């Protein structure tokens, strides 16, 4: 019985808010929310919604940018892995992408904006000698009406995620040896990978891919920074309506949150259709070798370089802008620097920074304890069926497969009824929904890969289950555990919607504050907040690396054991 308790707790913490939130969105979408004066069910919110100017364009933008970002992110990742696995280029990209995973969406979007805006670094670099511009050109590069910049931002953020998910799966699918087999049979690298490895690799990263799709079709923070504005995609428009003082518009907002759910569901259906078509088209038995794929692979490498280079250049611009006093167009470098923002950090950003940590650290610790408890209980329990394990893994992913805005709206209503909205406690609980899955995902594999014979030896030496946990399993897994906690902190730092909505605007973190600043033009201040969003996870990961390095400095084998 005890072995099921932690599992039940985790499922409850994830699925409970999800269902409550969806219910809380559904009722007002049909006009029922007594707090706002909606006493009876009606279709008016939905009618209002579809009468809103540009609504269909918003829907189209959300679908188009989301699907395009997911297709392109997956294609770049898979084709790069296919063409370059085991090469020095692969190792380099792997080294660069791992830390990029921890970059919050908002920081990545600001970095990209600073890079490609009409007055951004790229145009400055080329001006005036190549472009002839001595003033920022009047071009809609950012916030372009078709959402190209936003799609690019999403790709830059999702490729590291999908790449690292794939990396974890490659050894499990025996892809390295399969590639050797296909090579000796005369297949080109890409053909060999696509025919022999992709089906199994894809089936194992499918949930993360679907999560990327749902996220991309419902993203708010990136859309506000990089996306079109006339009209905006659906999700950011919902946020605008929710903040409206007119109750009718707020009912319309909940109808739109429901529409967002349907929209992301439709995107999933389209995706399943694409999967079928891809399976039909993939003639793995055609016998075609596609031996000469070098030029193709080089173009894939170029695509990957743009993703990595854009991301790296963007986030390097953040600290530079944060110490910039003046940087005239079209100079390539700032004319004058100042450390004013940093020396006065306590006054400028002290409170949001503390709030960020006060939410992120407990959320990640609680997630870590719950995940450890669950994993340890599963290890101790005799014969947990693989179906049960798969079901749990699916449950853990559930919050990532539902658009945030669709259930956070209802959750906000619920917390308001409990008079908990706007408290750090409620916001922390909201973060936990998203922190838990990532902590679980990053700890699960190392935990399962630990040699079970260590525990067997310890128990045949007479050690109790608790002693084995504390003296054998925990120290052996200290490194991945700390990394998982750092991942949790990074995820919490990056949360924009849960903070904004459950916090009711009263809980201000470095991420919500940076978005609040984004419409103003104070680039150094935005850059300061962006840099802080990079620094907090970076410090987290550094601590996670430093503690085991210090504790086990004289233990050679602890450097390779995960």
């Amino acid at each position, binding site marked *: 019985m005890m072995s099921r308790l932690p599992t039940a707790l985790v499922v409850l913490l994830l699925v409970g808010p999800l269902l409550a939130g969806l219910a809380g969105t559904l009722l007002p979408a049909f006009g029922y929310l007594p707090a706002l004066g909606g006493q009876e069910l009606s279709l008016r919110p939905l009618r209002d919604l579809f009468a809103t100017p540009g609504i269909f364009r918003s829907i189209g933008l959300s679908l188009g940018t989301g699907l395009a970002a997911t297709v392109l992110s997956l294609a770049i990742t898979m084709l790069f892995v296919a063409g370059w696995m085991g090469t020095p280029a692969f190792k380099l990209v792997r080294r660069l992408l791992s830390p990029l995973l921890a970059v919050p969406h908002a920081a990545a979007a600001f970095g990209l904006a600073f890079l490609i805006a009409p007055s951004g670094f790229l145009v400055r670099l080329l001006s005036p000698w190549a472009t002839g511009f001595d003033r920022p050109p009047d071009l809609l590069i950012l916030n372009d009406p078709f959402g190209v910049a936003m799609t690019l931002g999403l790709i830059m953020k999702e490729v590291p995620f999908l790449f690292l998910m794939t990396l974890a799966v490659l050894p499990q699918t025996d892809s390295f040896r399969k590639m050797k087999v296909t090579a000796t049979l005369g297949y080109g690298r890409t053909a060999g990978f696509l025919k022999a490895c992709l089906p199994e690799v894809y089936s194992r990263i499918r949930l993360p891919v679907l999560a990327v799709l749902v996220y991309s079709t419902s993203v708010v923070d990136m859309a506000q920074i990089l996306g079109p504005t006339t009209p905006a995609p659906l999700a950011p428009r919902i946020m605008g309506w929710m903040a409206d003082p007119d109750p009718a518009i707020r009912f319309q907002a909940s109808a739109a949150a429901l529409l967002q759910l349907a929209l992301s569901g439709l995107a999933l259906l389209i995706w399943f259709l694409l999967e079928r078509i891809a399976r039909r088209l993939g003639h793995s038995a055609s016998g075609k070798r596609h031996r000469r794929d070098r030029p193709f692979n080089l173009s894939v490498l170029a695509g990957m370089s743009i993703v990595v280079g854009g991301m790296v250049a963007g986030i390097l611009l953040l600290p530079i802008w944060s110490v910039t006093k003046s940087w005239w167009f079209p100079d390539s470098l700032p004319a004058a620097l100042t450390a004013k923002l940093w020396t006065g950090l306590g006054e400028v950003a002290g409170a949001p920074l503390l709030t960020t940590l006060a939410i992120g650290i407990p959320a990640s610790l609680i997630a870590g304890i719950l995940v450890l408890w669950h994993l340890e209980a599963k290890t101790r329990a*005799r*014969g947990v069926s693989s179906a049960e394990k798969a079901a749990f893994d699916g449950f853990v992913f559930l919050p990532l497969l539902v658009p945030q805005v669709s259930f956070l709206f209802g959750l906000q209503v619920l917390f308001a009824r409990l008079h908990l909205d706007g408290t750090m406690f409620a916001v922390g609980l909201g973060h936990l929904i998203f922190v838990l899955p990532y902590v679980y995902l990053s700890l699960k594999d190392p935990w399962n890969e630990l*040699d079970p*014979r*260590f525990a*067997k*030896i*310890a*128990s*045949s*030496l*007479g*050690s*109790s289950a608790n002693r084995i946990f504390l*003296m*054998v399993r925990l*120290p*052996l897994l*200290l490194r991945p555990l700390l990394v998982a906690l750092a991942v949790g902190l990074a995820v919490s730092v990056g949360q924009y919607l849960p903070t904004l909505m459950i916090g009711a605007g009263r809980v201000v973190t470095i991420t919500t504050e940076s978005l609040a600043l984004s419409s103003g033009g104070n680039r150094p201040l935005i850059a300061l907040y962006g840099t802080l969003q990079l620094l907090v996870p970076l410090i987290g990961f550094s601590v996670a690396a430093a503690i085991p390095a210090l*504790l*086990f400095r*004289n*233990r*050679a*084998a*602890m450097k390779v*054991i995960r």
Partner: protein
Amino acid sequence: MTLGLMLKDVKISLGGRTLLSLSKTVAPGDVLTVMGDSGAGKSTLLEYVGGFLRPPFEATGRLILNNRDITTLSPQDRHVGFMFQSPLLFPHMSVRDNLLFGLPNGGMTKHERATAVEASLCDIGMDDFADRDPATLSGGQQTRIALMRLLLAEPEALLLDEPFSSLDQSRRADLRDLVFRLARERGLPVLLVTHDKEDADAAGGDLVEL
């Protein structure tokens, strides 16, 4: 009433198919060698005796160790020492801490425990190794330490799952002799699973082929 390890009508099956059935008594200090192809259930037998058998494997029969019925006891309470192919010293502990991990608390003072560990290192001619990182030891040295860690826990029987297979030929004979000598000195019944005919010859006791 007999001392030693008694496997009474032991039958292990997987999905209704019988993998092995065995009825044997291993006297104190004796070695029962089990040989067979991979997949024949050799290691499964050791897992059963050690208390680690998990579904879908099923077992019937009784295990009597020095007149104690241990069939249903948890691994912690069986007092049966297990050695695997690799020494599996805990990589996060020093050699000393590995040995201390094996030594039961049993009301000893810190000083007495330290002395016991030093003495056990002396026994295997590794006096100066207490503070070493296990990862810096040779394979043979690691196996010796793993053996002492096991013996410090005062087991009443030894289960050896091809413990010499990772060692090179010259070390193998030395370690084999050491293990069998220490088992004989302490009167421990030994269950040895191996691929290597030489192991079986050196063990000298009964041989079961699966």
